[in-house]
């Protein structure tokens, strides 16, 4: 709860109970992660919900499901999950939690190499 804007804009349901139900897999997860940070996506399927407006700040009325589409790497080497709202196509990036599903994270990281748009064999000669 170090970020006042984030804590203010979370839904009242999440504040009251400290848990939320995943919009994709239905898992009930606690809003606080193990290391004390605030969770914004399901640790099992990494899906999120569009409740925060990242352009103007504050809460968003969309409430669409946000699916994970990509892994971004910060300069510090930390991984971020890029989410895309299936209703309004808004993109957000969120830090990876320690207890996130490592299989899905790794699958997203190697996904571009599974279907390259050009043959990757030529890079072996470089």
């Amino acid at each position, binding site marked *: 709860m170090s970020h006042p804007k984030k804590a203010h804009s979370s839904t009242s349901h999440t504040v009251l109970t400290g848990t939320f139900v995943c919009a994709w897999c239905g898992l009930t997860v606690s809003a606080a992660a193990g290391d004390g940070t605030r969770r914004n996506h399901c640790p099992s399927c990494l899906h999120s919900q569009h409740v925060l407006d990242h352009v103007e700040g504050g809460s968003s009325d969309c409430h669409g499901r946000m699916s994970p589409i*990509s892994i*971004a790497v910060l300069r510090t080497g930390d*991984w971020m999950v*890029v989410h895309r709202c299936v209703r309004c196509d808004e993109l*957000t990036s969120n830090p990876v939690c320690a207890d996130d599903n490592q299989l899905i994270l*790794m699958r997203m*990281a190697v*996904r*571009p190499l599974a279907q390259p748009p050009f043959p990757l064999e030529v890079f072996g000669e470089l």
Partner: protein
Amino acid sequence: MPGRGRPNRRTRSTRRPQRSKDVLHGRGGRGANAFRCVGCRTEVSPEAPGTTHRNHCPNCLSSLHVDRRVPGDRAADCRGRMEALSMSVRPDGEWMIIHHCVACGELSANRIAGDDNALVLVRLALKPLRDTSIAHRVLLTL
């Protein structure tokens, strides 16, 4: 000659004619949508194989924050430089570049073009796997 600004050593008779320039901000004509990349200063032509919306430099993949929602609407007044952040894959297997605005932090997803630098694309796709300690830890927990 007073009031003419910078003195010119050449006389009027030997001065070469002004070279022809393309009006980049006008509508239509050659070079109407050509741009100079904000990242590597490459002159980029608007014709891109495989896409009708050239929105990033084929050499360094940098972009400019000019569109808000619809590609080509030119509705954003940020004008910040957008750097390629990560690579995403559509369900149909097409690569998408996630751009991140350096000025305002906005994210956008753009299709790759046919003449994008393949080495830079693969470097971007391999970015999460560069730090082998993370991948090692991930594979251990599986």
